[in-house]
């Protein structure tokens, strides 16, 4: 029973990581006022780039870096369309998902002779036990034998919090997402802040994708991301657009996945089918939005295009 519990906790941490990274990315974009439905696509590109880089260089750390760069690169069309061209942000995000999945699978087939998936990566990231802490009963093996991407994700939550709530940059970014006119009368460049927010979301979602393909998994195919980007979006909402909220929400959603996967260990699946557990995050998100599970309040100017000097 203890072992099962440890196993479930470890699985929770495992599946929390990509959600947390991508949702932190979405946080920067949406806090600046740009909805990012394209997280799914950005994760896909990150996952793909990380695998290819690691296959070529045998260095998974380099894979993480290129995944971030590729995520940033692919967030540019979304930024241009929705900020400069004032396209509908949701439509642009949908297009980004099409684009990223298309490009990634197209390149996989082109690079690997028509195969729909990459070869297995041998040099994946290895779990990084933290000496001492890993020996704590139950939680030690679950929390302190995690992948480096998990530690990275946790560090990013704290850095994200500090940046958003303690620095001038973060305050301006949030102001732009709430009341762009006010920010502009105070001399803040609304367009530049929004571009920055979207690019950061690309980098972090790319990293999130990489954590799925070269840490949790070891290859890339069309179904590597399979909706994780959309769950990240739910994580962001359920976490009320706040770094620590997002940390809590991703832990909770990771736990739901862990229950669905490992529920049989504690006999849970005899009562509740795992598919029903899979639904839980989405049902909760709807309830949160409808105001039944604490009101989720989005940045006020989210989804609205902005024209300099417009009132």
């Amino acid at each position: 029973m203890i072992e099962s519990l440890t196993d479930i906790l470890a699985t929770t941490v495992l599946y929390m990581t990509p959600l947390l990274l991508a949702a932190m990315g979405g946080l920067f974009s949406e806090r600046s006022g740009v909805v990012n439905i394209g997280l799914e696509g950005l994760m896909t590109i990150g996952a793909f780039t990380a695998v290819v880089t690691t296959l070529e260089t045998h260095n998974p750390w380099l894979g993480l870096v290129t995944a971030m760069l590729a995520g940033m690169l692919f967030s540019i069309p979304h930024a241009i369309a929705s900020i400069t061209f004032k396209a509908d942000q949701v439509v642009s995000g949908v297009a980004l998902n099409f684009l990223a999945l298309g490009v990634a699978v197209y390149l996989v087939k082109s690079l690997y002779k028509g195969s729909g998936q990459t070869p297995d990566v041998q040099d994946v990231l290895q779990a990084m036990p933290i000496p001492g802490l890993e020996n704590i009963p139950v939680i030690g093996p679950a929390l302190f034998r995690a992948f480096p991407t998990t530690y990275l994700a946790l560090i990013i939550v704290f850095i994200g919090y500090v940046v958003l709530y303690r620095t001038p940059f973060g305050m301006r970014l949030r102001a732009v997402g709430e009341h762009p006119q006010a920010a502009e009368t105070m001399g803040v460049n609304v367009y530049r802040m929004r571009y920055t927010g979207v690019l950061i979301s690309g980098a972090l979602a790319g990293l999130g994708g990489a954590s799925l393909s070269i840490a949790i998994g070891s290859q890339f195919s069309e179904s590597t991301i399979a909706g994780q980007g959309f769950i990240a979006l739910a994580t962001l909402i359920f976490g009320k657009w706040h770094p620590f909220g997002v940390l809590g929400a991703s832990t909770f959603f990771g736990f739901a996945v862990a229950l669905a996967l490992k529920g049989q260990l504690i006999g849970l699946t005899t009562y509740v089918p795992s598919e029903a557990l899979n639904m839980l995050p989405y049902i909760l998100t709807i309830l949160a939005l409808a105001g039944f599970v604490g009101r989720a309040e989005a940045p006020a100017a989210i989804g609205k295009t902005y024209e300099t000097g417009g009132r």
Partner: protein
Amino acid sequence: MQVLSKINKQSSFFASLISVIMGLLVGGVMMILAGYNPIQAYIALFQSAFLQPFDIGETIRSITPLILTGLAVGLAFRTGLFNIGVEGQFIIGQLAAVIVAIKLDLPPVLHAIVAVIAGALGGALWAFLPGYLKAKRGVHEVITTIMMNFIALYLSNLAVTEWLTEGADKTKNVPESASLHWSFLSQMFDGSSVHFGIFIAIVAAIFMYYLLWKTTTGYQLRAVGFNPHASEYAGMNVSRNIVLSMMISGIFAGLAGASELLGTSGYQSIQASYTGIGFDGIAVSLLGGNTPFGIVLSASLFGILTYGGSNMEFVAGVPREVIRVVFAAIIFFVAANIVRWASQRRKKKKVKESNEKAVKSGD
């Protein structure tokens, strides 16, 4: 809502055409980058979509669900709503149709009709909640419909493994009596899998046209979509129209699901991820300018690209996913409305002046 009413106006035929051409160019560049010959590939694509009667039949079969999901997205757009949940409504449509098809024992034709209606109602039901939450609690439909998509996916998987079978990963085939397969039609196209669904799709397109432009309901739906404030002033019930629009949109999506299930696959299986047909509807509708005729045209283009694309992979060796990239590029170009943007830059000075005038008159 203002943003969406912009979508309803922006897609002229000319702008769509330019966007398609530019999208194909982007695909061409992708092919050159990966070392393929784009001209050869595009020739292979368009040829293989029309070469044999069989291929024409298959192309029509690919077009069928795209028309319906395109109509679903387009109708919601017309009322100022973004139904990104067509995918989920599609799945529930499939599920409802398969339940009626394998659980009920009805005479031929009637069985199919009941199954199709069940699919339509399933889709409408699935779209009701996001519409209701939008109208009554102001919850944005984009996020709720995304969530509803996942719930639909897992619900369908749950139903297949737990209720419709004893743990199998697909249901048994629907009986002949409920199938939309029509041998006469199939024979016309050399035994291709084209089925009765195409007629459902065409009728749905005509219905959307009739509903929106010939009925009092449509008048209200369009008025609310363009200007909810004026609609309220004129005494229309804005909330009711939002829910209604979502449900009609869901009917189209559910019909797409029923038609695919009863006509093409013949069974429901557990799915790891979406079919993507619902999301394609967004591209179809945007390119088609949210008009039924435009949607039929753009669904045809996307259907040709989809079916031709898979043959292109066999003939010219170019991965079919390049077509997804073409779709994406087309959506970007239509959404960013580059054609209008280019013409607006010239007008910009004029606009600025009229803005100043507006500010002044609000003195």
